[in-house]
């Protein structure tokens, strides 16, 4: 028999101050995104800033694909953190495990929606992809393996990992019992069930790791294997994608963990040690990423073809220089902040530097994703076309803002109805007696 000594679920059913106002703002932003998409569906892609490469001097991939890459990048750190926690049995990081899993599921869903927004004929795109795509192609690996396979695997992981907490919530919650019962699906937390759950999630984590590395590498290959596109063709694209994905994802996880810690008062579970681990991981990944940036810069400037150098010079000194240096600047500032935090004893227990780093690296990651997607289309043509340009239209901004609002709303709603931090296991009567 289980004692009911745990307050469950965390903040579920309660409406903190500003809750309804926040929801109203998010819903309004989502409505704006839907309106923008309706314009795109009725008027065609002409309402976006995207145009054909070459004769029309534009870019066929713009803000949508930039955010597809960004969202998929965020998902990487989510499920990989959860998998590493499970496989390496790092129990002190377990409180961020569910946050990471949820981050993966939501960002992958957003990536899928951003792809749909990028397709002029979404229905035709979806059907033909499953009908004609080449599984050997990086496009297939990215846009179907990631969105369907990886998302499905992450959903299974999130669902199974949450069954015990759903059962615990069902024991004590007064509302939404049907929801908790449905999620728990008969779970009773017997020793046999616990053992089976541990075994299932262990193997699931093992199966997810190669899938996520493959998925994120193929996203890099979509760009890196295009030999006719200066600026994209590089062996470093895949590893750089994976590393920057880790940087932005861990940064976002730090922001979410700090928000949960503050607003749901989970200081006991979300300890400073967790933020120390996040900052150490971020430091290593940031150093690695900056190393890759320097290597790519030197290679292109020393030995790149003339068109390769043209694209690089546009990044360093031309139209895109403010984004390039802005992105690199945020990474450098973030790294300095992390090193200062590690060096100064007074800052070692502070959470805010890690949150600031999370914000900075995510801004930088969006900038870098934009630079990966756009300049090679407008400035990297090998055929004798004039240089092109691309400026996102308001519809694109509105749709992306709507998608982000949708993601935030989904996260908030989940947090309201389900424990976002794994609940402690209540003592059974046998354990109590043993004490």
């Amino acid at each position: 028999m289980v004692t009911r000594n745990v307050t469950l679920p965390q903040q579920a059913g309660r409406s903190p101050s500003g809750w309804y106002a926040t929801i109203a703002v998010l819903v309004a932003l989502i409505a704006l995104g839907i309106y923008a998409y309706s314009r795109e569906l009725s008027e065609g892609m002409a309402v976006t800033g995207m145009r054909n490469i070459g004769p029309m001097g534009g870019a066929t991939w713009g803000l949508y694909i930039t955010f597809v890459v960004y969202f998929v990048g965020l998902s990487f750190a989510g499920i990989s953190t959860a998998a590493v926690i499970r496989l390496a049995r790092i129990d002190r990081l377990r409180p961020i495990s569910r946050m990471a899993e949820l981050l993966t599921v939501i960002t992958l869903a957003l990536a899928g929606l951003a792809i749909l927004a990028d397709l002029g004929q979404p229905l035709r795109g979806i059907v033909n992809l499953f009908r004609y795509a080449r599984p050997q192609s990086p496009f297939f690996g990215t846009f179907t393996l990631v969105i369907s396979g990886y998302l499905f695997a992450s959903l299974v992981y999130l669902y199974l990992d949450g069954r015990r907490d759903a059962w615990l919530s069902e024991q004590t919650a007064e509302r939404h019992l049907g929801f908790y019962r449905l999620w728990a699906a008969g779970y009773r937390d017997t020793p046999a069930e616990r053992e089976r759950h541990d075994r299932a999630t262990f193997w699931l984590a093992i199966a997810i790791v190669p899938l996520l590395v493959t998925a994120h590498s193929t996203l890099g290959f979509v760009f890196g294997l295009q030999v006719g596109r200066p600026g994209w063709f590089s062996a470093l694209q895949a590893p750089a994608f994976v590393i920057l994905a880790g940087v932005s994802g861990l940064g976002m996880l730090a922001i979410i963990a700090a928000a949960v810690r503050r607003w749901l008062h989970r200081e006991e579970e979300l300890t400073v040690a967790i933020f120390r681990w996040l900052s150490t991981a971020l430091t290593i990944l940031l150093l690695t990423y900056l190393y890759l940036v320097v290597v790519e810069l030197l290679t292109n400037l020393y030995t790149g073809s003339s068109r390769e150098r043209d694209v690089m010079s546009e990044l360093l000194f031309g139209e895109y220089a403010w984004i390039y240096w802005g992105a690199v600047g945020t990474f450098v500032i973030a790294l300095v902040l992390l090193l200062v935090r590690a060096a100064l004893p007074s800052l070692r227990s502070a959470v805010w530097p890690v949150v600031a780093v999370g914000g900075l690296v995510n801004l930088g990651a969006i900038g870098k994703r934009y630079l990966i997607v756009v300049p090679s289309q407008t400035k990297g043509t090998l055929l004798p076309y004039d240089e092109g340009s691309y400026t996102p239209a308001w519809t694109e901004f509105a749709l992306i803002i709507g998608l982000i609002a949708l993601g935030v709303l989904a996260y908030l709603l989940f947090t309201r109805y389900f424990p976002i931090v794994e609940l402690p296991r209540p003592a059974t009567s046998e354990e109590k007696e043993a004490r």
Partner: protein
Amino acid sequence: MRRGIVVLMVVVGFVLQATAFFFLAAPLGTPTAVRFSEPRLPFAPLLFIVGIMLVFSAALVYELLPDRGADEG
């Protein structure tokens, strides 16, 4: 019984992936003709995805399907 179903799902999932990838989708090799762009079986890519989902669904079956005898302990 449960373990048997799980193993079967994993095996069938991987077989489906391999079959779709190597035999049913567009042929591997240097593309020298139009046939390299067309799948040998329509919706072969979907079968590949179904194979992946089947493998991961095995975890659901493993946890959710009751196994009398083992669970009672």
